[in-house]
C-alpha cells in the first residue's frame, strides 16, 4: 500500500479543483453570457481534452512545457528545477486536461439561469459583482458542485497524461493510479488490488458527498 502515492493523488486532485474552479467559473460565465464571434471555437478548444487520447495530450504537454520550450525554460531558470516531471508540472497538466469537466457543467448551470433573473438582479440595485455573488453563484451551485466532483474524480484516475508529463517519480509524480500499474507490472497483485480498492472507495465517498451537497443546493430553490 503506497500511502505516499495516495497522498500525492489526493493533493493533486485537491489542488486542481481549488485552482481550476475559479478560473473555469470565469470562463464558463464568459461562454454562457458573452455574445462574441469566436465562441464556438473557444468551446471546441475547451472540449478538446475530451476527445484526444490522454497519451497524445501528455505528449503535446511534454513538448509544450519541457525544458526545450519557452515556458519550461523560464520555469527552470526561476525555480531551479524543470516544470515537467514535477508535481507543479502535473498540476499544470491536470488543469488543462480537466478544463471541459470543470467548464461544461458550470456553463450549463449558468446558461440555465433565465436572462430576466439576471436583469432583475441588476434592477434590484445589485452591482455586477454583487449579482454574481448573490444570484448567479447560488443558482449555479449544483453545476459548480458537479464540476468539482468530476474534476476531482477524473484527476484521481488520470493515468496517461500523468505518466507522460510526470514520469512516475516515486514520492513526487507517482500517483496512485500509476502506482497500481507499477505494482501490476511487478506482478505484485495483492498490493495493486488493495490500492485499487482504496482508490475506488475514495472516489465513491467523494462522489457521495458532493452529490448530497448538490441535491441540497438544488432543494433550496423549492418552496
Amino acid at each position, binding site marked *: 500500500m503506497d500511502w505516499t502515492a495516495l497522498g500525492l493523488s489526493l493533493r493533486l486532485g485537491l489542488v486542481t479543483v481549488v485552482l481550476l474552479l475559479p478560473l473555469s467559473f470565469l470562463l464558463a460565465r464568459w461562454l454562457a453570457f458573452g455574445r462574441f464571434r469566436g465562441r464556438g471555437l473557444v468551446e471546441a478548444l475547451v472540449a478538446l481534452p475530451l476527445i484526444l487520447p490522454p497519451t497524445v495530450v501528455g505528449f503535446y504537454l511534454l513538448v509544450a512545457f519541457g525544458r526545450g520550450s519557452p515556458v519550461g525554460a523560464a520555469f527552470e531558470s526561476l525555480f531551479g528545477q524543470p516544470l515537467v516531471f514535477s508535481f507543479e508540472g502535473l498540476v499544470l497538466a491536470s488543469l488543462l486536461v480537466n478544463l471541459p469537466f470543470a467548464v461544461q457543467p458550470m456553463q450549463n448551470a449558468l446558461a440555465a439561469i*433565465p436572462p430576466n433573473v439576471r*436583469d432583475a438582479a*441588476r*434592477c*434590484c*440595485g445589485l452591482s455586477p459583482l*454583487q449579482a454574481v455573488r448573490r444570484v448567479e453563484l447560488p443558482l449555479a451551485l449544483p453545476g459548480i458542485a458537479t464540476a468539482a466532483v468530476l474534476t476531482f474524480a477524473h484527476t484521481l484516475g488520470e493515468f496517461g497524461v500523468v505518466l507522460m508529463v510526470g514520469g512516475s517519480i516515486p514520492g513526487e509524480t507517482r500517483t496512485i493510479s500509476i502506482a497500481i500499474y507499477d505494482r501490476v507490472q511487478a506482478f505484485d497483485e495483492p498490493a495493486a488490488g488493495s490500492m485499487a480498492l482504496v482508490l475506488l472507495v475514495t472516489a465513491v465517498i467523494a462522489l457521495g458527498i458532493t452529490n448530497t451537497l448538490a441535491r441540497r443546493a438544488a432543494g433550496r430553490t423549492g418552496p
Partner: protein
Amino acid sequence: MTAAGLAVRLRRAAPFALDVAFEAPAGSMTALFGPSGSGKTTVLRAIAGLQAMDEAQVSCGGEAWTDTAAGLTLPPHRRPVGFVFQDYALFPHLTVREQLALSMGHRPAAERAARIDALLELVRLQELGDRRPAGLSGGQQQRAALARALARDPQVLLLDEPFAAVDWALRESLRRELVRLQRALSLTVVLVTHDFEDVAKLASHLVVIERGAVTASGSVQALTGRNAVPGVGGWREPAIALDAVVDAHLHDRQLSVIAAGTLRLEVPAIAAPVGAPVRLQVAAREVILASQRPEGLSLHNVVEAEVVAVEPASHEALRLVHLSVGDIRLLSLVTVDAQRKLALAPGKPVLALIKAVAIEAFA
C-alpha cells in the same frame, strides 16, 4: 416622496429599427401600447439601462440617466427604477423577504426589517413572506415582484405586460391594486401592454408604438375622445375612456353619480366612496342620439351635447359622430340613415342617450 417625470428619446438601427420620443409626466401611469413585436419591451428595457441604443437620451426629473452624446450611461443598478418583468423573474432560491431585502441595499440594515413588513402589507402578502417563488401562485408571484420593485424606493416603476399571464378575475383585482399603490406612493409608472383594457382602466397617458415608432401620444382621455388611437380601431370598437370622480351615491335607487367635467352620469351603484377616482368607458355603439328628450324609457342618462365632427366608420353604412360636453368628448356610432334623419352636422346641438348599464366603471 415627490414623483419625477421621465423624458425618453431612443434611436437604434439594428436588429430592428427603433425611433421613439415621449414623456411620461410625473406621477402618471403611462402606457406603452402597441402590437407584439413593436419594440415596447425594448423601450422599457432601455429606460432601465438594460438595453444599449445607438442614440439615447433618458432623463428622470431632470437628472440624466443616459446621454449617448455625452457618453453617459448609468448602469441599471444606479438608476432608481423598479422593474416588474413579464415572467416576474423572481430569484428562485430566495424567500419573498430575502428578495425584498436584496433590493434594499441602499437602506441601512436596521431599517430593512420594518420596511419589508410594510411592503408585504402593502401588497397583501404578509403571511407568505417566508415562502420561495415555487410555493406561490401566479398572482402572489406578481405581487411579490411588485413588492421587490417597490423595495428599491424607485422614482419610476416599469412594468412589462404585468397582467398577461393572469386570468381575468385576478387581473381586475391586480389592476386595482396597482392603481392603489401608484396613488399611495405617487410613483411615475410606465406600463407596457398590448391589452387596451389596461390602457382604458389604468393609464392616464398613452404612447402608441407601432413598428418601432411612436404613432400617437397624449392623455388617454383626449386620445380616446378623438378616437385617435391608431391600430386599435381595427379590432376594437371606438370608445371613450374618462377620468371621473364619484360625486354621490343614491342609496335608495341603488345608483351612483359619476362626474367628469360638467358631465354627470348615473351608473349602477359602485363600491367606491364619494370623491374616489373612477375610470369610465363608454362604447360608441352604446350612445344613442336624439333630437328631443324621450319619455317613458328605462334610460338614466340624457346628456346635452354638441356635434363636433362626423367621420366615416368601419362599415360604410355607419358614421362615427364626435360630440363635446364642455371639455369632455363623447363618441356615438350611428347609421348613415340616422345621420340624415337627424341632420347631424358640426355645430348641431343634440342629446346623447347613454344607458346606465352600458357605462363601464372601474374604481
